[in-house]
């Protein structure tokens, strides 16, 4: 909770730092801010507090989710390289500030107690993301992506808000526990069942599925991921996804758990559909960035599976998966940023798989980091991704979601096909990539994420026992 206040203040402080002529100070300052917020967040461990007239709740679950979000942010900021020195295009102070603000929104989405706070958090996060997506202002693709994102996002927000209104109308409460109690009593036959409640639940679920890009509300994802500057794509695919799933999980497991029988089949089929559409379309991508977009959709499918199973272990599965996925995704994008800048086609960065050809020869570290992250995303053993998938599959197995399980296992196999493309390109194809110079902090980030991925693959209980 204190981290929300701190990050808001730091965001403003960052804007003022922009007045300084020395741009080099921005990135270290932002890193320090995030680390400070992380410390504040961890200080809330093992305390359960309701804030501001029951608007927000901090407990171990929210601390864990906040930690994952802040770690992902930290990694993204560490590979941002100060957003270049171009006077006209880049406004690092503003970018960093907006990133911090959006993290505030994300933290609100994992700590909300009142549906209004969910809405506000979601909007803070989304509006920040619209801006960041369009931040490459001379680039048409970036502009188009921002507009698309905004249009789809506004649509989703409307639906979510309508859903919140309907649920309030049916239950008379904005508090997730209040709604939960009402729904449970409703089940017990003590009050009248209204269709309004069901429609409300449905619309809220749809609104959140938009944000986490599950099928059939995923269409914006590839265009936006491809158009946005890569650094913000990395941010979007880690922080937004984690926050969205935290919100979805909390709503479904606290408020609407009494109506589990109603929504489980819906998510059951959506999960299978998401997995199939995402993985099979990903096979046909030539651009690494677009492939990562579909990969992000498919991971939404896996996460949806554990949310659907609604087991006691679901929250720790979501947390572990989000962490493993975030680390691997940031690593992959970090390598891609370097490689695509190094190799341009038609004046634009080359983001296809071909750009990785022959990477391993002169840049063994980059190739290795890329390979480990791809293996982790594909869920190969001895990487964190394997355990992430494993925990999710065992949740689904316990609930007996057999169709989802079969689809998920098959689609994991399909995933191996496209995740191996960059590995094959960098290790087995001939290419002429010269040695790329990497800044120490960037290199350190790559090394840390790679080690973390392998370490979590060897000893998942290191963090799983905390979650």
């Amino acid at each position, binding site marked *: 909770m204190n981290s929300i206040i701190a990050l808001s203040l730091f965001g403003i402080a960052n804007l003022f730092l922009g007045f300084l002529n020395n741009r080099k100070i921005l990135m270290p300052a932002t890193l320090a801010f995030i680390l400070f917020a992380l410390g504040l967040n961890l200080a809330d461990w093992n305390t359960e507090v309701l804030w501001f007239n029951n608007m927000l709740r901090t407990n171990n679950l929210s601390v864990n989710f906040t930690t994952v979000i802040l770690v992902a942010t930290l990694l993204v900021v560490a590979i941002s390289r100060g957003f270049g020195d171009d006077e006209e295009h880049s406004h690092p102070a503003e970018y960093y500030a907006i990133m911090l603000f959006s993290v505030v929104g994300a933290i609100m989405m994992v700590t909300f107690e009142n549906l209004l706070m969910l809405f506000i958090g979601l909007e803070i996060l989304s509006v920040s993301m619209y801006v960041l997506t369009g931040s490459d202002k001379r680039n048409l693709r970036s502009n188009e992506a921002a507009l698309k994102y905004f249009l789809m996002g506004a649509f989703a927000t409307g639906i979510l808000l309508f859903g919140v209104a309907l649920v309030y109308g049916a239950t008379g409460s904005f508090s997730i526990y209040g709604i939960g109690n009402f729904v449970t009593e409703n089940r017990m036959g003590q009050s009248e069942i209204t269709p309004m409640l069901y429609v409300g639940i*449905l619309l809220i679920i749809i609104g959140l599925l938009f944000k986490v890009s599950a099928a*059939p509300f995923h*269409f*914006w994802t590839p265009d936006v991921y491809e158009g946005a500057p890569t650094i913000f794509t990395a941010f979007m695919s880690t922080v937004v996804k984690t926050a969205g799933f935290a919100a979805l999980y909390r709503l479904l497991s606290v408020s609407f758990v009494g109506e589990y029988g109603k929504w489980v089949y819906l998510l059951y089929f959506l999960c299978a559909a998401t997995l199939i559409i995402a993985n*099979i379309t990903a*096979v*046909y991508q030539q651009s690494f960035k677009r492939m990562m977009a579909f990969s992000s959709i498919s991971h939404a499918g896996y996460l949806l599976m554990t949310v659907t199973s609604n087991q006691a272990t679901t929250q720790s599965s979501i947390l572990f998966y989000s962490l493993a996925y975030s680390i691997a995704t940031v690593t992959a994008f970090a390598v891609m940023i370097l490689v695509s800048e190094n190799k341009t086609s038609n004046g634009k960065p080359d983001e296809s798989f071909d750009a990785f050809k022959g990477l391993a020869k002169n840049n063994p570290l980059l190739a290795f980091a890329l390979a480990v992250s791809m293996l982790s995303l594909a869920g190969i053993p001895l990487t964190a991704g394997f355990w992430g998938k494993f925990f999710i599959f065992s949740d689904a197995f316990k609930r007996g979601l057999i169709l989802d399980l079969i689809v998920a296992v098959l689609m994991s196999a399909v995933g191996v096909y496209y995740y191996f493309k960059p590995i094959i390109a960098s290790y087995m194809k001939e290419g002429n990539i010269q040695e790329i110079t990497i800044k120490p902090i960037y290199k350190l980030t790559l090394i840390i994420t790679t080690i973390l991925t392998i370490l979590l693959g060897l*000893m998942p209980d290191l963090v*799983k*026992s905390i979650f």
Partner: protein
Amino acid sequence: MSPEITSWSILLTPLLVSLIIFSLGRKHNALSGWLSIAGAFVNLGLSILFFVNYNTDLQRITLNFNWFTLGKDSYIFSFLIDHYTLTMLFVVNVVALLVQLFSLEYMHHDRDLFRYFAYLNLFVFSMLGIVLTDSLFVMYAFWELVGLSSYLLIGFWYESHAPNQAAKKAFLMNRIGDAGFLLGIFLAFYLLKTNSLTAISHLDFTQINPTLLTATGLLLFCGCIGKSAQFPLHTWLPDAMEGPTPVSALIHAATMVAAGIFMLVRIHPVLTVDAKIVIAVIGTITMLMGAFYAIFQTDIKKTLAYSTVSQLGLMVVAIALSINGEAAFGHLFSHAFFKAGLFLCAGAIIHALHQTGEVFDAQDMRLMGGLAKKTPIIFVCFTICSAALMGLPFTTGAETKFSILKVAFDFALQQHSQWTWVFPFAIILGISMTAFYSIRQILFIFVGNFRNEKVNISTIQERNIFLNLPIILLALASIIGLGTILTKVFLVEIPVVSTWKYDAISEYFAIGLGLLTGWLTYQQFGIKMPHINTMDSFYDSIFVKSTLSFAHFLHTFDSKIVDNSVNYLAKLQVVFAQIIAWFDRSFIDGIPNGSAAIVGSVGRVTQHFQNGKVQWYFVAAFLGILSMIIFMAF
């Protein structure tokens, strides 16, 4: 320091050093050796500290670390700290440190020095893993890692043919044993419902099917057959001498080959009486065969290699005949020092001969002789270590060998059946043969005239502290004085109920006989091997001729009957293969190709929706919402 932190740091230091050396790469060749030695120093210090703090007779600490949890089952990464662990930690670290010191000079000209030290540390890491772990599964993982690092080190000079072949052979032979070991672990887990060594040692075995238990013990022993070079998989060890000599000292004399013995000591409670008899027989065969082959080697390292095979056989016999592993473990302990010392001496001699700059086989003992004057330190140390190997008085080897003999006599007296006397007398025979080949080796290398005409003997010298210091220390550890202190501190008194009253006399008589005949044969025949092999003509008439005629018969049988049937079988196979190939093409390949085609067409459809028009996205989303509402309504 808490035992948790200490054991983790002991285990992980070599791994860390290995990774650092690897990442520094060839540019820092010179640094790699010193880094590695610093790591070994730290580890040795930690091990000694650990020993001082936690070694009491009956103390047994198990440290459990949750590895990962699946549902309710948690998988545990655990350390077992007891007397054996602490002693082995000392042995491995001390020998590793001395060998690395030796390697500094011995290997300094190599351009891949960093790789050498990185592999060496990888090996130490895996060996320490075997020593520390409490879980058979984890032990298997480290067991394989030890095999891998041994492979890498034997084949260190991968550009030549022989080391490559030897490395492959060692790896494959070990794999055969490991397959049995893995099956044994599975069977043990199935039977005993646990893979924890501590739990196994507390089990009550009376409720368990004895046949299956025997099978478990024998399958686990397969691991030892592979790693500890027991008959019939012993042949990889002499070939492994193609690796650098310090590696032979560390891995193929002191530590890795001892892993099998160590494992047997650990699983001792599982071994049934039947299993022990089989193990004892295999150990006896290995011991006698190794000693016999050692006699006829002309290569300085191969003699030592066969001698190692023989001594490992002796340890296996000791385990099989005793009620606990103490006697074998004691010999493992003393053997580690004197055999490593012998190998390092051999390495120093080879190094000195290489330094002369001439090209010849520097390992051939027939081209040596009279080196005592030129390399006095090596001569003294070699003799001390050899004396320990023979079991001469005032050496550590005497004590540990004698306890094995006592254990064997004890066993024979307890069993009340005549044939069990085979084991103690086989050991006595082995002792005699050991004395025979050891004295001959000393005479070949150090006594008489220098027999290599290419080299001027005055150019041979020993001056390097890095070569001499480890050798001197190892020799001191094998003789009364330092050696006595070490054995008193690290080894436990072995309780023996009964023994033969002539045990000591028979042992010394055997050694004396071996020494005398060894000296006499040298006096009589010099270095000429064919003359020494006088027994061969005896064998020739009885065994070889009959074997040859039998072989001839087999050859005709082979070419007439077996070959023909093989040829027809081959033709049959070709036809069969054609059918399979057709089946593969049309069905097996058809499935992935067909599914790829299906995926392709689906992908094109989903791709089609992804056309970039935002209006269309809205329509899709709206249709989605609509269908979901309809779905919910029903």
